[in-house]
Structure formats: structure tokens, C-alpha cells
């Protein structure tokens, strides 16, 4: 079930650059249900489910496994960890949050007080992680420079349909892609499912995967921002109103024919979808579209509030809708 | 005469000649007593059938906001200033026609690439804006568009949307258009239709017109700001296109005669003419001159709600334009 798959994937440790545990979790879910699985030089997990049609197209679906985190850059004499960002994570997101390292070491993140009182925005340099160590030596037994902390996994059900968790970006899309691969049958086109790496630092995994795989069509699955909470107006996307078909963002202007195929798929599936124009951000779609001689590419997004915080919130109805749209989409391009 | 002919005509304040010529030709077909005073106001007198009725002046202004050339650069660009109230923020990247030959020109802006981020938050003042007519140097620019040449927005008339019209100078060619319509009919009262000049530069035409008119009642036909869209709070909406002709109770320059104001609303209600009360009270118009010029007159203003007046595109709704004529006519007939 979509919800169980999502829970499983959210629990896996997988900051940008160390996505292998997520890949393992996906593999065990897909084992025996697909035609091939392999991992490439950047750690992308590439899963294929062949199409029945000889002349069918090769459609690349991409969902990224990686997740923002804090990388340790220095350990203070007093045992506190100094950190830098891995992906788009800032003091406002992490102040007061619980984090965890790969070996299970927990920590809490705090900010130095602003002694100058100049009202300036806090910077990453003012952050530190407290793992309970009293000395550098004690800390070094648990954590090393270069280790990465991520938000401690959590799964919070909010109301009837909504769930909040860190790493919802983009594990919810990974869960969708897993489910799509499980449900798809007798499709004419070949599905190439790419669970990509290093999206948060510049679409690095997908760039390599798209170049190597030379797909005919691309579709990225990712979360998008929201415009339905106090003082947030754009994008004009709301939770629970259906998945969003991307028109454009900073990385890509969706290819009209893929975009339109998504609208048709939604109509056929009886799922209402939203239209998304984002003035910022990007997805693996940009990397796929501009690969080699160009690949017609689109993005299907799950509306997600509070992206890059520890409480990224989505609506499961959007997830269910997205799965239906995807299954209809496969053979429409 | 079509509204298009009037809005496309060239007539900035102080050089209304082309507009006056057009209107005069039309007015002379409908009225035997047409004259022009020394301010350029066109005055059409139509005696009534019943000499006991009060004489009524109905006025609209012919002039439009525009530009005037105040200098030339080495590069052959024209320096200019506004004639009438123009927000410099609406002239960037627009088209204009200059002088008697109606030379086409464009108002440019430095490319976004060569600007600092802070610059984008600044208003480009008239002193930094130029009209480009393609002249190679100062000499050529001076000969093509000498000092004092007038320019107006070049905005072809367009009908669009749900019965809307977009054009330059709807303020106040809609009034001129309806005033000509009023001349088509006979009334019991004496009717004096006044097409005035120089409204946009300080109600100057109406000032002299009022002096010689000797009317007991003056009705001013205007195009007025609507201000009903965007982030404007509802309490600041002046009037709403589509809800009929706007009747003013006051503005910053005159207070409507209370009885006339009530009569207008009553007539509209009785005859099913769409009308609304104009809520905003900023600005002023020729009613001030007629109220206080010469022997003075009881005044009231009937306006067509116009979006974006004093920009390249004024927008008004045809149903409101018709309502203005209908209400003015109903008033004249009611006397």
C-alpha cells in the first residue's frame, strides 16, 4: 500500500551523497516484480520494466532518494559540532530540531544567541549540534568530520488525509514510483524507473542517468511548493486538490506534449490536477530535458507544505491521485 | 461619428485643433449656431421650443493628456515633459505620435541587463526618459520635432472583452461623443453644448467658456477613474465599470447641486438607466468653472467609469457610455 511504502522509505537514512540505504529499501520492495535493477556510478538505482510493444518508447521516470542534511565541518573542544549545509537547509529550518547520524547518534540543533542584537538573520556559522558529548574526544567516538546528520525520522498523521515527515521531499515520489512499478502491467512502453541521487545539490544523479539511458521521454516526480497557508500566495497550488502538473520552474519549461499527456492521463483517470508555475526551484526534469539532443520531459508534482523543514506535509489524496495519473500516463506518450 | 474617430484624433491640451475640426463638421450638421471662442472652445447653441425653460449648458472636454518636446540630445533623442497629469511610470516602453506629421516614436528604457537590482525599484522620472524617432543626431531631431512639438500616446482603438473599449483619451472623448449625440435631438429648454479645451492643464477652457455662457444649469460629461481592480481595497473603488453612469455628489473642485444630484438618480431609477453614485472625491473637472464662472450655475457631473485614465490605454464599457448619453438626454427632456 502507498502509505506503508511511504512509511518504509521515510525511515531510511539517505542524505545527499549517501543514498544507499534508501536504494536497499526500494530494492527489497521491488524484488521479483521488475525485469532489471542496477546501480550506476553515482548510486542511482535504475529499475526497468519492459514494455510489450517492440517499437514502444523508453520512458524515464525519476524520483530522487536524497534528502537535505547537515554535514559536520568542525568539532569544538567542548564537544559541540559545527556544521554546513548539504542542499538547501538553513538556520530557520533546523533551529531546535532533532537530528540523527547514520550510526544512530542523535543530536539537537541550536543557534548561538545574537549577542550583537543587530537583528540580522542568523547564519549557518552560528549553528551547532549538541550530541551530549562534553569533550572533542568524546564526540569523536560518535561522529567524524564529514558525517551527515538528517532530521530524525518521524511520521505524523495530521487530520484525516495529511501526513508530515522530514524527507517527504522526495521520498513521497519514490514511494509513488515504487507503487507505479508494482501496479503497471501489460504496458506497451518500457518503464525506466530512476531513483536518483544528489538532486538537492544540482540534479547530479539524474544528469548522468539521463545521458546513459538515452530515454525517449522523461518524467520527474517531485514535490512542489504551496500557496495555501497564511501569507503564502504563490504558487497557486493547494494541498488536497490533486497532484500538480508543472508548467515551468527555474530548471525547465515542461515540454508541451508531455505536459498535455499528463492532463489527458488525469482526465482518463478521473483525477483532478492543478497547474504549477514556480518562480524558483528545479527538479530532475531539467536534467533529463536538456540531456544530449534534448528529451521531451515533464514533471508531476505532489503539493507539499513547509518544504525543507522537518515537517514537510502532504495530502495522501494527492498521492493516490498521482498514482492513478501515472498509470494512465505510461502509454500516452 | 464613431467613438473610434474621436479617440484616435490628435488633441493634447493647447492643440485641440484636429479634434475641434472633426467635431465642428459634425456639429454643424445638427446645429445652426456654432462658434469658437478665443480659448478654442467650440460652442453650439440650440434654442429650445419653450423660452420659459432654463438654459442648460452641457460640456465635455476635447483635450487629452500628452507630451511636449523640451529638448534634443546629441544622439537625436527627444527630451519631453507631460502635458497634463501623467504618472511617469506608465510611459516606459510605449508608442507615441509627434507633431503635425504624426511622426511615430517610442519611449525606451535602459535594458534590464545593464541595471543594478536597486534600480528596478526606482521610478524612471521624465528627466531620464526620451522619445526615439530614429533621428541620427541633434540637428535632425530638431528639424523633425522642433522644441514645443506635441505628442500623444499612439493607441489604436480596440473593442475587447465583454463589451469594453480600450483607447487613448476616452477621458474625455466619451463625453464629446455623447455631447454630439445630444445635439441630434430637439428640446424644450435652450441647449448649449460646449466642447472645451485645456481641461487637463487646469480647467482653463471652461474658465473662459463659463464667463460667456450664461446658463442656469451646467452638466459636465466626463470620463473618470474607476480604480476598481488590483489590490485596491473596496472602500477605495471610485466607481465600477458595468454599473452605469457615475453621478458625483462632490469632488475636490466642486460640490454638486444637491437637487440636481437627486434628480439625476431619480430619473435613472424611473427610466431604467443604469447609474451609480461616484464614491471617490479626489480630482476635479470643468464643473468647478461652470459653477463659479460668470454668473455661476447649478452643476452636476455625469461620468463614464474609465479604468487607467491618463495612461496609453483607457478602458470603458459601452453600456456605461450609452447610459451617460441616456441620462443626460432624459434630464434635458425632463425640463
Amino acid at each position, binding site marked *: 500500500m502507498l502509505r506503508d511504502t511511504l512509511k518504509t522509505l521515510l525511515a531510511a537514512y539517505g542524505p545527499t551523497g549517501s543514498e544507499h540505504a534508501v536504494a536497499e529499501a526500494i530494492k527489497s520492495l521491488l524484488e521479483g516484480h521488475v525485469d532489471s535493477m542496477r546501480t550506476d556510478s553515482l548510486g542511482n538505482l535504475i529499475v526497468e520494466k519492459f514494455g510489450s510493444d517492440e517499437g514502444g518508447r523508453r520512458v524515464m521516470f525519476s524520483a530522487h532518494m536524497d534528502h537535505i542534511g547537515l554535514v559536520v565541518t568542525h568539532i569544538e573542544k567542548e564537544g559541540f559540532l559545527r556544521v554546513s549545509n548539504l542542499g538547501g537547509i538553513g538556520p530557520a529550518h533546523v533551529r531546535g530540531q532533532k537530528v540523527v547520524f547514520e550510526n544512530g547518534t542523535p543530536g539537537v540543533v541550536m543557534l548561538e544567541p545574537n549577542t550583537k542584537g543587530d537583528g540580522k538573520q542568523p547564519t549557518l556559522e552560528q549553528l551547532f549540534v549538541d550530541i551530549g558529548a562534553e569533550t572533542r574526544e568524546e564526540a569523536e567516538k560518535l561522529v567524524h568530520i564529514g558525517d551527515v546528520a538528517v532530521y530524525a525520522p518521524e511520521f505524523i498523521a495530521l487530520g484525516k488525509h495529511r501526513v508530515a515527515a522530514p524527507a517527504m521531499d522526495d521520498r513521497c515520489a519514490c514511494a509513488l514510483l515504487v507503487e507505479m512499478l508494482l501496479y503497471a502491467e501489460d504496458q506497451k512502453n518500457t518503464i525506466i524507473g530512476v531513483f536518483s541521487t544528489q538532486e538537492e545539490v544540482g540534479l547530479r544523479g539524474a544528469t548522468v542517468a539521463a545521458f546513459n539511458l538515452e530515454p525517449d521521454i522523461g518524467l520527474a516526480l517531485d514535490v512542489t511548493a504551496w500557496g495555501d497557508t497564511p501569507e503564502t500566495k504563490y*504558487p497557486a497550488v493547494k494541498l488536497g486538490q490533486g497532484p500538480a502538473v508543472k508548467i515551468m520552474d527555474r530548471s525547465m519549461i515542461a515540454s508541451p506534449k508531455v505536459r498535455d499527456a499528463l492532463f489527458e492521463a488525469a482526465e482518463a483517470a478521473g483525477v483532478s490536477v492543478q497547474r504549477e508555475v514556480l518562480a524558483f526551484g528545479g527538479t530532475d526534469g531539467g536534467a533529463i530535458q536538456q540531456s544530449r539532443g534534448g528529451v521531451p520531459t515533464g514533471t508531476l508534482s505532489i503539493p507539499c507544505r513547509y518544504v525543507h523543514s522537518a515537517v514537510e506535509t502532504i495530502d495522501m489524496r494527492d498521492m493516490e491521485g498521482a498514482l492513478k495519473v501515472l498509470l494512465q500516463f505510461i502509454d500516452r506518450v | 461619428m464613431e467613438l473610434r474617430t474621436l479617440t484616435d484624433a490628435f488633441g493634447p491640451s493647447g492643440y485641440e485643433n484636429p479634434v475641434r475640426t472633426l467635431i465642428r463638421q459634425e456639429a454643424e450638421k445638427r446645429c445652426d449656431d456654432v462658434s469658437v471662442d478665443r480659448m478654442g472652445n467650440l460652442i453650439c447653441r440650440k434654442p429650445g421650443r419653450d423660452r420659459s425653460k432654463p438654459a442648460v449648458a452641457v460640456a465635455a472636454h476635447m483635450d487629452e493628456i500628452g507630451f511636449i518636446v523640451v529638448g534634443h540630445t546629441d544622439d537625436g533623442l527627444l527630451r519631453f515633459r507631460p502635458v497634463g497629469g501623467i504618472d511617469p511610470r506608465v510611459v516606459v516602453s510605449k508608442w507615441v505620435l509627434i507633431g503635425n506629421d504624426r511622426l511615430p516614436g517610442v519611449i525606451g528604457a535602459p535594458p534590464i541587463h545593464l541595471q543594478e537590482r536597486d534600480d528596478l525599484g526606482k521610478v524612471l522620472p521624465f528627466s531620464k526618459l526620451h522619445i526615439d524617432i530614429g533621428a541620427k543626431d541633434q540637428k535632425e531631431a530638431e528639424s523633425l520635432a522642433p522644441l514645443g512639438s506635441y505628442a500623444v500616446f499612439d493607441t489604436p482603438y480596440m473593442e475587447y472583452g*465583454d463589451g469594453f473599449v480600450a483607447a487613448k483619451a476616452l477621458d474625455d472623448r466619451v463625453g464629446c461623443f455623447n455631447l454630439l449625440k445630444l445635439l441630434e435631438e430637439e428640446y424644450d429648454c435652450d441647449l448649449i453644448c460646449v466642447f472645451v479645451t485645456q481641461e487637463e492643464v487646469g480647467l482653463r477652457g471652461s474658465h473662459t467658456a463659463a464667463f460667456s455662457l450664461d446658463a442656469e444649469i451646467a452638466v459636465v460629461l466626463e470620463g473618470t477613474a474607476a480604480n476598481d481592480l488590483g489590490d485596491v481595497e473596496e472602500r477605495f473603488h471610485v466607481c465600477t465599470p458595468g454599473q452605469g453612469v457615475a453621478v458625483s455628489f462632490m469632488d475636490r473642485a466642486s460640490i454638486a447641486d444637491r437637487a440636481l444630484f437627486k434628480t439625476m438618480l431619480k430619473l435613472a431609477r424611473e427610466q431604467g438607466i443604469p447609474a451609480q453614485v461616484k464614491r471617490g472625491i479626489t480630482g476635479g473637472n470643468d464643473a468647478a468653472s461652470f459653477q463659479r464662472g460668470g454668473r455661476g450655475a447649478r452643476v452636476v457631473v455625469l461620468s463614464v467609469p474609465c479604468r487607467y485614465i491618463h495612461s496609453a490605454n483607457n478602458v470603458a464599457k459601452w453600456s456605461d457610455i450609452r447610459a451617460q448619453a441616456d441620462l443626460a438626454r432624459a434630464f434635458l427632456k425632463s425640463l
Partner: protein
Amino acid sequence: MEMKAFLQEVTAKRGLPGDEGPVAQWVAERFGEYCDEVKIDAMHSVVGRIKGDGPRLAFLAHLDEVGLMVIKVEDDGSLRLGQVGGIDPRILPGMRLTVFGKETLPGIVGAKAPHLLSEEERGRAQKLEDMYVDLGLPAEKVKELVRVGDQVQLEHRFVELKNGRVAAKTLDDRCCVAILYRAMEHLKGLKHQADLYFIASSQEEVGGRGAMTSAYNAEPDMAMVLDVGFAHQPGCDRESTLDMGKPLITLGPYLNPVLTGKLEEVAGRIKVEVQKEVAPRGTGTDTDEVAASRSGVPCVLIGIPVKNMHTAVEVLDMNALEEAARLVAHFAAACEASWEEELWN
């Protein structure tokens, strides 16, 4: 078709980044008059080829235009806009735009009457988020016809000014597409050895995306990119701007000096007067992507000075266009296999 007529038509065509279909279709038809083969590729770039036995030489001018996009439909039926490419929002108040909804609709960008402005409002430029488009339609009708993501085009007028100067939107960079078209005409009367690719590239305004993929496919041995430069106008430094009337050649590390030398030789031989500018690093044109395509492509960059770039009243001098077209054609004709050897010597 005469070049000015070409320019007048091509600047009107719809072709915002990512959806260059209509302008691509039209340009492909025009290129077809002279090319041996023409196709529109996966990214909407138009690629015309005039075959030759020599090295593959590509010419690139971009097809797309800066514009706007609907990001929200308000309850009162007015539209909020986002940018596609860099537009200075200060050009918009009072402008007529074209909204490509389910139907093509004219819309006007609202502007408050000066009487109603507060002192505070007068003093600051409006931001795009404060502006709105008025379609003159009831809100229900707007919601039926217009959706988030619909494209919005700047007002198009083609105005002929004095001295062969013209004003229109999207002279950046369709004037260079016009140059390619005119150069093809010149090439009918010239002999050439090179295998010529004429690429009208897509998505330049959002980062050279079309040029990158088209260059990958065409695999040129050498390339010339054509784009607009900044003509002198008030508000800009003399140092960072150029004169109207003459094409320009850009110099800098992204450009191949030997190939640029060849270009200057050709210009000297056929007496095309040029001016020069330097791009110390990136050129901000398709060159940046093309030069780094596959294992690298030696590039030259020429341009046309334009005033008021990225507004609806970009201004250029037709003479510069004519001269650039001659230069392109003769450069194409001069290109031969031996050049490749010389480039790195």
C-alpha cells in the same frame, strides 16, 4: 521575402521559451525556401541545412522571446503574472498584452490614475506582484478561458522610425534569425564548401537550453552565434554600449581567436564595417553552451546593437542587419577544411 517584411512578421509570432511551436513552424517554412533539409527538433529549435562537403559550420540565432505567464487568476477575474526571461516590470503599466488562454485574449495591465496615487506610491516602481491584467471579462468567463501557466506576450507593434530604424518587441533575437534568412539568399550566388547548419534555437532567454541540445545533435566543427548587443542610450555607460548602424564582433575567452581572425578578414575583404566589444567571461548568449558542446566547438559571436532591450520597443538599424547578413554569407562561403587545422596553431 524581403528582410524587413520577414522581421515584421517574425517579431509578431508567438514563441515564449518552451513553447516556440508557432514561430518555429513559420521560420521552418521560410528556411525551407533555401535549405536542403529543415526540421524542428525535440526542443522546438529549427535546424536548416545547406549541404556541403567541407567542415560542419553552424549558425545560431535564438527564436524565443521574453514574456510573462499567468500565475494566478484572482476572484475578480484579474490575472497575476510571473516572468519568463528577464523583463523589467516597469514597462508594463498601461500596456496591451496578449494572453494565450483557451482563446487568444487581449488584456491591459492596470495603472492607477495619477489623481489617486499617494505620495508613497508615486515614489516607488510597481513590482510585478502588484500588477494585474484586465481582460474586460466577467470573472467566471476568465476562469473558464484562462488557467495558471498560460503564456502572455508583450504588445507587438512594428514601427518604422527615421533612418531605416525600426522598433518592435523581440528584435532580440529574431533580427538575427532574419539575418540568417537573408544570408541564405546571398548564399545562392556564392560557392561554399562547408556543410552549413542554420539553427534558430529555443529557450535562450532561460539559459541556452535549445542551443545546447541542438548543437549536440548537429555536432558542428565550428559555430557562429548571432545575438543582440546594447546600443548606446541615455542611462547607460558609453563604455558598455555600442553605436547603431554597424554589426559587432565579440572577443573574449569563450570565443576562438583564430576563427574570430578569419571573420575579421572576411569583413575586411567585403568591406563590412564592424565594431568590437569584449566579454571577459561568459557572453550571456548561446555561445556559452555551444562552445562547450560535446568535445567543444570553436565559436565566433557577432551581434546587432539594439536599444531598449527586453522592452516592447527595442530599436535597431536595418543597415546593421543588411551588413551582418553579407558578413554571415561570405563567412559561410569562405569556410574551408584547412581552417580546422589552423584553429589551434
